[in-house]
């Protein structure tokens, strides 16, 4: 079961200081909550690049391939023979390839977002406060029971408005 300490901050620099101190002290796994994306947290956390782009690429390539395939297969299976004209022709079929590239690529991107961000989430789980979608920044440190005190001290020293333990 997850156990840890949650700090709510009104100031962004205070939250960044807390993250830096927690990382330095190797207290535990850090989750940051912010009402809007801020580069300050990216700098503080230095997370890896999002792999959502791989979902996009695979989806887009699959969609384009399917678009060409369905139009060529459909034309060959139910041929409309017009003298001197090819039964399958790539120029108009690029429209299907393009549209399906966008459709499948776009939906794969959303699937990538959901998988990587782990949404839909059925419960809020521990370490969340409704203030984090309003005016506050949140820092949740998931750590062992013996490190809880240290985490609390760091969060308070950094300037957290409110600190509480959750499990």
């Amino acid at each position: 079961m997850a156990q840890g300490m949650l700090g709510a901050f009104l100031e962004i620099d205070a939250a960044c200081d807390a993250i830096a101190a927690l990382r330095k002290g190797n207290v535990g796994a850090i989750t940051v909550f912010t009402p809007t994306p801020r580069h300050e947290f990216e700098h503080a956390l230095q997370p890896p690049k999002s792999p959502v782009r791989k979902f996009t690429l695979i989806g887009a390539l699959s969609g384009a391939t399917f678009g060409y395939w369905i139009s060529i297969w459909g034309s060959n299976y139910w041929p409309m023979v017009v003298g001197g004209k090819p039964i399958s022709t790539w120029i108009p079929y690029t429209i299907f390839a393009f549209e399906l590239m966008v459709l499948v690529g776009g939906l794969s991107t959303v699937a990538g977002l959901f998988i990587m961000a782990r949404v839909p989430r059925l419960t809020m789980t521990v370490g969340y406060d409704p203030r984090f979608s309003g005016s506050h920044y949140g820092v949740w440190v998931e750590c062992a029971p013996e490190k809880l005190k240290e985490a609390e001290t760091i969060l308070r020293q950094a300037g957290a408005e409110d600190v509480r333990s959750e499990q």
Partner: protein
Amino acid sequence: MATLAQPDVVNAADEPKRPNIAKAGLPLPAVKDYAQVDREIMNTLKFSKGWFALLMVAVGLLAIGAASWIYQIYAGLGVAGYSPPVMWGVYIITFVFWIGIGHAGTLISAILYLFRAGFRTTIYRCAEAMTVFAVMTAGLFPIIHIGRPWKFFWLIPYPNWRLLWPNFKSPLVWDVFAISTYLTISVTFLFIGLLPDIATLRDAEKNPIKKQLLSILSFGWRNSENEWRHFARAYLFLAAFSTPLVLSVHSVVSFDFSMALVPGWHTTIFAPYFVAGAIFSGMGMVFTIIIPIRKWFKLEHYVTLNIMDAGAKLTLFTSLVVGCAYLAEFFIAWYSGVQVEQDYFWNRVFGQWWWTAWIMLTCNMILPLSLFSQKLRRNPAWLFILSLFINLGMWYERFVIIVPGLSHEFEPWQWGGYRPTWVDIGILVGSFGWFFMWFLLFIKQLPVIAIAEVKEIVPPRLRRPAAAHAAHGATAGGH
């Protein structure tokens, strides 16, 4: 002690009058902190008598449209104004009109996002919702136009035993793919952008039933840095996909005409001409919607005059492109030396359809030239009036493309007239009711301005003064 970082410009009256619209963080001087953003934008969700009255008007218009359509289904397509040779009329005109309206939403939400144009932030949600409802409206018209709507699934190209083989070389089949993709991606883009705002509504909600509903709709979004990181990447890719998509959709709609051997239609200029016209008409509708919203909801400090100014410049630019396309059409007809083409354009402007062509030219080419004046670009009342003329002019542009072409083909025996009936007009009016009904419902359920994105341009609260914060490696400009 906590200090609030000062924005670039402090006083609303001091807003620069020649804003750099290419700047990512166009400031909102009168918006001070996150709590103000939440409070003011959530206030727009409160029901009012005025809103209810408008909804009743929209539903009333929709009822007129529905009654007209029911009558047409009962009596047959003959009650519409079709008579040979003009067998495409108000329904196809209105279809192209609404598809065009739908284009500004994606332009503002996706293309301007990629260009980091700051003026999109407070108007894009409205434009995105407009796109979705406009495409929903447009999608009804091919079904109304076929006369027997219960056979609409015949439009979908799949192999079957009805001797209707899928013809992948037909522009009508391209249309089905393009518009279905556009609707799906537009809805997805709108919904993904809404997730953080629904989470904000959920967290502020006191009513347990509503809270539960919003929890489901928000997919349990928690605003964690991990969620935002993937969200930003996904949003970027969706924008990157939507940009060529918006260009392709109206190009494909233009192919419905340009692939046909009809004078005035069979021309290579149609795709860019349609795309520019679509963006122009969409900007017109954005102004029609956003100007009353900013006034009634008291959001003038979010949709500032600088933002209106920037939008007006975009409208002026697209008007010039559209005007250029009109003139190029005349030139091509003259320079081609083809008598039929020349006759067609003469008939369009000085003959049978002169009044429609001059409504189009006045509303789309002449009146928007007023936007060269900065004073008028910063005058919401004028922008609203002009936007109504643009809506009218763009509907007539589609009339001018479709009806004169079909009524004046190659041989005199193919010449004829066209007069819409009350059924056509009723369904046209109903389409506005349908569109505005959805829009009015939307603005009272979900934020019409993106809360999370506005917070990005509001300077965050700091414990130390801004100078020390900058040294820390952080910026007040946000994402």
